[in-house]
């Protein structure tokens, strides 16, 4: 199949006979596709996505230095079993417990609440984005101004606490919601006895 066609009948003539230069390319194509298949299977075309997280350092912070956040700004999200989430606003005041609301990660769940809570910032970011899409802003400037907006003094501060039963997926999902709802300030901290108490009351 793969021979070079030659027309040499052994008879020598005075003039060299023109040989056909046609080569059968089929094996070469075979080889080409074989290698393509190999490279296609062995490669990862898309690099994995990452999410950048910064945690506070564990160095001792004295009580005085710790910024006390206003109860009206604080939103606590508790991650529960089977991707369930609970949230409450503020903290216990005058022996009245905050209301613990169970919800989920669907667009109508925790997101709706966070968007409502962070409405002013959302609107501002949206306007800014429209401005950027209209090519009035550079990428750098956009990032800078977005930073300013989401760092707003009145914007909510979200505290994320995971229970023992929660999974890593819930954590990623909740961090996703932070990005979607443009929440600039959030922290991942250990669950407190108070939160467990609230949860156990809820399940009764």
């Amino acid at each position, binding site marked *: 199949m793969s021979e070079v066609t030659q027309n040499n009948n052994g008879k020598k003539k005075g003039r060299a006979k023109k040989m056909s230069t046609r080569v*059968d*390319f*089929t094996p*070469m*194509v075979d080889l*080409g*596709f074989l*290698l*393509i298949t190999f*490279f*296609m299977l*062995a*490669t*990862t*075309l*898309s*690099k*994995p*996505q*990452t*999410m*950048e*997280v*910064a*945690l*506070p*350092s*564990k*160095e001792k912070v004295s009580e005085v230095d710790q910024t006390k956040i206003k109860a009206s700004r604080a939103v606590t999200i508790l*991650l529960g079993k089977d991707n369930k989430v609970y949230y409450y606003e503020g903290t216990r005041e005058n022996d009245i417990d905050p209301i613990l609301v169970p919800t989920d990660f669907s*667009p109508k769940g925790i*997101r709706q609440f966070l*968007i409502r809570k962070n409405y002013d910032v*959302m609107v501002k970011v*949206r306007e800014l984005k429209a401005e950027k899409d209209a090519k009035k802003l550079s990428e750098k400037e956009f990032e800078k101004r977005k930073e300013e907006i989401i760092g707003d003094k009145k914007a909510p501060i979200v505290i994320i606490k*995971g*229970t*023992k*039963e*929660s*999974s*890593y*997926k*819930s*954590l*990623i*999902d909740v*961090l*996703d919601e932070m*990005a*979607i709802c443009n929440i600039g300030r959030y922290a*991942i901290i*250990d669950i407190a006895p108070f939160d467990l108490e609230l949860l156990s009351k809820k399940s009764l």
Partner: protein
Amino acid sequence: MPKVKIKRKNTAIDMTAMCDVAFLLLTFFMLTSNFTQKEPVNVISPSSISEIKIPDTNIMLILVDSKGKVFFGIDGQENRKELLTRMGAAYNTTFSPAEMKEFSLITSFGVSINHMKAFLSMKPEERDLPQNATGIPCDSLDNQFKNWVSIAKAVNKNYRIAIKADQTTAYPVIKKLMGTLQDINENRYNLITSLESSKDFEKL
């Protein structure tokens, strides 16, 4: 009526064009490929909307499987050798050049330093068996994981910590891992996620 004479057609096709295409594609795949790194455990990372790509170099990969076993790996063969030397010195073990060579070819591993010699003498296919890949000890009694990270940081301070965990991994495991990293003042991580297929987050 004259008999219709079917002319015998020549079935040979000119393969040159096909060959061109095949090799063009081959070149493309060869140039764009970065080979899939073999991982000791199969980890399904949770999805997120984050679109930041992970950098190519200077990655310290921490793999956590669904049962909470921890695996560790850095890039750069020279750095791996250096890491093993220093780690061996910390645990009073010396490794032969052959073992060093073997170690420098492993992308990530999950064994205790005491079993490292046995692990390196195994065949590559044996290493990933569940009884051999036991995960790096990272509890408070024997926190080898902490040493691996701090020594890797000492080898190359530009390493970025990438955490890739399974979506079903329990949250306390991740929390403990991050706590360990916080102890050695590593507060910035990249959490590896896969791309979210569709999340209608643009809806207000």
